[in-house]
């Protein structure tokens, strides 16, 4: 399913086409990502949402080339400025990673080395792709720390990761991702554990990067409210597939997929104070024994015989697509 808005067509930074990333396990094939397509234009922010286990992180890891056996990209194309990333060698990929493409992980210690000082790591990250002096690299590192709201960045440079709070570590990781003003940043739930004021600081920086440098962003989260305020486009993932996607207003205000309805209904908010929240019954399915057809049907109030087949992609309005046999205008109570 691909939705390309007219404005993005001339310059999509990333175009993912029918990506499949499967894990070949003893018990069978686990289809973590099973035919995912989307584009992210220059300076645009795509919110990738879904419950845990829906394949959001694996989508991100696939793009950046961090899938290890028994996992493998089995098909699809990942066009980054017209080069297919899935065809690049590890060496070519390393040149792009951290330079033109960066990833911010849920756990900042995936980025940070616990035994090295912050300045050592950041200078190294700068020099890996830019031939400048150590002093210049250090100055750039310090500026990047300032950009993510770290006070007295000069002093923090000489700290070790364990001397910083979790929130501060995450901001260092975010600063590292911004060092080379990449064309694409994939952010995997980086603010989920942060307080609202710190989260807002980071979201402000991210917006600035998209605005000022044309950086395209994939913002992975299960928090629809963050996506509402941040994203241009939204893709809702369920069991390895995108079930609804499009412009943020279409998906959040005129959602048609029963799963998207469920997600929206389960967000606590002012107007539903002290009333029961909408519950999606049941749990996310085990991807290992996924029967054919719509993966949501065991939890869907509108499921019928038709849903035992794969639902086709429909496009109810421009830049809004979904996979469902029975699109619903209204919430199922």
């Amino acid at each position, binding site marked *: 399913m691909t939705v390309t808005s007219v404005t993005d067509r001339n310059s999509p930074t990333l175009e993912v086409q029918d990506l499949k990333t499967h894990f070949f396990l003893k018990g069978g094939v686990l289809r973590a990502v099973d035919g995912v397509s989307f584009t992210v234009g220059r300076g645009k922010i795509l919110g990738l949402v879904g419950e845990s286990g829906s394949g959001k992180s694996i989508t991100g890891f696939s793009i950046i080339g961090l899938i290890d056996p028994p996992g493998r990209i089995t098909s699809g194309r990942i066009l980054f400025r017209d080069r297919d990333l899935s065809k690049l060698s590890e060496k070519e990929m390393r040149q792009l990673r951290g330079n033109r493409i960066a990833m911010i992980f849920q756990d900042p210690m995936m980025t940070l080395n616990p035994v090295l000082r912050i300045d050592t790591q950041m200078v190294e990250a700068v020099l890996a792709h830019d031939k400048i002096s150590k002093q210049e690299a250090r100055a750039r590192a310090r500026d990047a720390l300032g950009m993510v709201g770290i006070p007295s960045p000069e002093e923090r440079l000489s700290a070790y990761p364990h001397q910083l709070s979790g929130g501060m570590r995450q901001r260092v990781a975010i600063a590292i991702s911004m060092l080379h003003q990449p064309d694409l940043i994939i952010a995997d739930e980086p603010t989920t554990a942060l307080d609202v004021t710190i989260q807002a600081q980071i979201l402000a920086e991210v917006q600035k990067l998209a605005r000022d440098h044309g950086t395209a962003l994939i913002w992975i989260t299960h*928090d629809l409210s963050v996506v509402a305020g941040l994203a241009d486009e939204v893709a809702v993932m369920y069991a390895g597939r995108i079930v609804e996607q499009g412009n943020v207003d279409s998906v959040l205000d005129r959602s048609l997929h029963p799963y998207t309805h469920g997600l929206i209904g389960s967000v606590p908010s*002012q107007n539903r104070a002290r009333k029961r929240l909408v519950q999606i019954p049941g749990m996310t399915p085990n991807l290992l024994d996924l029967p054919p057809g719509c993966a949501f049907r065991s939890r869907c109030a509108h499921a019928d015989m038709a849903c035992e087949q794969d639902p086709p992609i429909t496009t109810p309005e421009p830049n809004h697509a979904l996979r469902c046999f029975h699109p619903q205008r209204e919430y199922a109570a």
Partner: protein
Amino acid sequence: MSSVSEPIIELRNISKRFSSTQDVVGRLATRLGLAKQPPVVHAVDEVSLRIMPGEVVGLVGESGCGKSTLGRIVAGILPASSGTVLYRGKDVAQLPTRERRRAKLKTQMIFQDPFASLNPRMRVSEIVGEAPRVHRVVSNDVEAYVSEQLHRAGLDPSYRRRFPHQFSGGQRQRIGIARALAVQPEFLVCDEAVAALDVSIQAQILNLLLDLREQLDLTYLFISHDLGVVQHLSDRVVIMYTGRVVEEAPSGEIFSRPNHPYTQGLLAEIPRLDLRKRRFSAIKGEIPSPLNPPSGCHFHPRCPHAMPRCSVERPVLREIAAGHRSACHLNDMDAAEPLPAGAAAGRA
């Protein structure tokens, strides 16, 4: 809700100080006067709080501000350094042992990480059944009692023989709830009880907590950094900032008329489904270190309205409207003059 009765829990001037960890050599050196005293973290700083029966009180604040510490003092599992905890009007410290134990049993806690708080080597039936058996809440047929508790928390009683690792995050949180409720408490302290859960599972647990409150007349202290969740659940909201309560008001009041500049900044940043393409900005500056909090009003280095007085004098928490208390010097200025409407104030 009856507001005539006495508070179920009342805190009077509660403080909690931790001296930061020292190794054996360090402690010895200090004792011998060879090293200076280790720095002290003032995790909770003279907090007073009343919670009425049947109320849901939301406790909000940035991480490290002392919410969990306060919650553990309320639940009776952490002694305060100073101050008084009253349970139904009686000083808990003065109660005879038997009554004190009973009061403690009536207050239970639910934790953020349902896995870390459940013993991995115990079966669900033991986890849920142990305390009621030990405390003789139930004397015969413990198994039937456990089944009833599990059922009430939305778990299939046939899971009794399973171990915690055989459950999903949401199910583990239900086990935690069943365990807490099994001793028939009146008061639950929920510390980030839904923070680790997916939105859809979070909705299930929040619904369960609301249902249980109705069925069992429970009172909640609900600790969370998620303002959306707090707004959804709470009758009253308490805002903490580095160890102190800075504002406290009925839920509707605090979200529509926040008084304290910190609260105003905090509320302006709540992500909301209906706000699109926002310009995020944030309260400037860093969360202060509790080791070395700013003088006067702890918020003054970040406050857009700070005055000279703010860095020297601690503002007292005082009533500014019925049931609405705030600790800010701006409230001492001409009472007729409205607060400078921080850019944030009118957002809700």
